[in-house]
């Protein structure tokens, strides 16, 4: 697997083959580092961001025509403002599995489905213990494009988690499929917010969205406890399931997420 490890806004390590072209430069006007990746062949890629101090960074990912990308993105550290832009060309398919375990973050994601038959599945999992704010905007700029946007978070401690998720289909862009499945498990009394927006200006479109904020279902908890699992362990099990579900990643990575949960709920 191709891999890039960043510490703050610097590349610490990269192992990339010829399927990925990259560049990292600082925008002189705004002083923000910008990592640009062009995906030219079918591949899988892992990007690890470790923000040891407050960092502003932009990542731009261009996926070329007929290319499949499987991306695993991991964010750890203290504080960041991160902007990510995806540009998907004709018949490109991108599946993103993303795990955030950072103290505070403002993340702005723009997905451009620029040409026909571009498909994106975006699975975000986060453990929010302070302020986390996610804006995810998906633009269906071409007909017959598909987006499945699934932001999921567990809110704990002083966490205040917010998802603003918007999907856009303008007039004359037809036969698109835009879906959102937003879910926050709120284990605090703090306020969490989901704004699921569909801006659809065309009739010939399939679109749906869901938003759910709450704790785990009582029948799920009862079922696990009826097998002798303590309430604490049952909740841990449900959190682990919630954070690894639909994540197309290696078993070791899933174990890493499960260990993170264990560290929070010792």
């Amino acid at each position: 697997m191709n891999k890039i490890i960043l510490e703050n806004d610097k590349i610490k390590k990269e192992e990339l083959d010829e399927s990925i072209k990259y560049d990292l430069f600082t925008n002189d006007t705004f002083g923000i580092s910008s990592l640009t990746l062009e995906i030219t062949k079918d591949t899988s890629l892992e990007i690890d961001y470790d923000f040891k101090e407050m960092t502003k960074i932009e990542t731009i990912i261009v996926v070329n025509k007929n290319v499949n990308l499987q991306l695993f993105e991991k964010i750890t550290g203290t504080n960041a403002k991160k902007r990510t832009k995806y540009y998907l060309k004709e018949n490109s398919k991108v599946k993103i599995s993303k795990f955030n375990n950072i103290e505070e973050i403002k993340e702005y994601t723009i997905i451009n489905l620029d040409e026909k038959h571009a498909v994106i599945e975006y699975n975000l999992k986060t453990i929010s213990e302070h302020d986390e704010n996610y804006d995810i905007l998906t633009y269906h700029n071409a007909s017959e494009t598909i987006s499945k946007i699934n932001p999921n978070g567990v809110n704990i401690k002083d966490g205040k988690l917010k998802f603003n998720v918007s999907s856009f289909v303008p007039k004359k862009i037809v036969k698109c499929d835009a879906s959102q499945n937003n879910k926050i498990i709120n284990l605090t009394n703090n306020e969490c917010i989901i704004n699921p927006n569909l801006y659809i200006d065309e009739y010939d479109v399939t679109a749906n969205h869901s938003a759910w904020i709450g704790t785990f279902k009582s029948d799920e908890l009862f079922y696990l406890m009826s097998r002798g699992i303590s309430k604490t362990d049952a909740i841990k099990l449900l959190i682990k399931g919630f954070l690894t579900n639909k994540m197309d990643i290696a078993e070791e990575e899933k174990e890493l997420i499960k260990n993170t949960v264990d560290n929070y709920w010792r």
Partner: protein
Amino acid sequence: MHTLKIKDLTVSVENKTILKNFNLEIKSGEIHAIMGPNGTGKSTLSKVIMGDSNYKVEKGNIYFDDKEINNMPTDERARLGLFLGYQMPPEIEGVSNADFLRAAIHNKDENFKLYDFIKKINTNVEQLSMDKQMIHRGINEGFSGGERKKNEILQMYMLEPNTIILDEIDSGLDVDSLRVVGENVMKYYEKEKPAILLITHYQRLLDYIKPDYVHIMKEGAIVKTGDKNLVSEIEKYGYDDKKLGTNVVEEN
């Protein structure tokens, strides 16, 4: 030898009384079947025995081995050896059957060995004619009705309970799955001699699991008890009060 005793139990949910002065005693090695029309409180009984907090015990007690367990949390009841096989087990996305069962066994026995666990689960999956891949899938995720019921029986085998409540374990099963489930419950019974409480609507499950006692439940209470011949009467007359002699007398 274990005894589950329910004495004068009255239970309500959302201010509606479901169980009314319910009495029952089940000992290890005994198989009891409860039959009755829909909405009479049979499933409520099974949930209340396991301590579902959605139900309120208004009066009466549940005892396990003479210890009152009314306020005991569900997980502790399960660790005593109580097991509920669900009519409609929930689907829990993301939590694999293997992780779930490992957590359940670890809560029961901290010294359990992973190798023994894997060996045992593989043997039981084969015995139940289940797909081996299902142990890595989410709990009941995408399972058919039959697979869900077999999964319940798999859990029974893995957790080795001493007191088993099976709530309409036969519903939604085709004949082959019914046979596999019925035979495996009996196989477990022959080996471990647990107490079994079967809740069912149909005689067909009782072709495999032979009850010592059959109870007819109506309006939240047992109104008649007999042996397995009572099942034939129910098949013949339905739940006709006059023919079965099961008139419910309302309390003033």
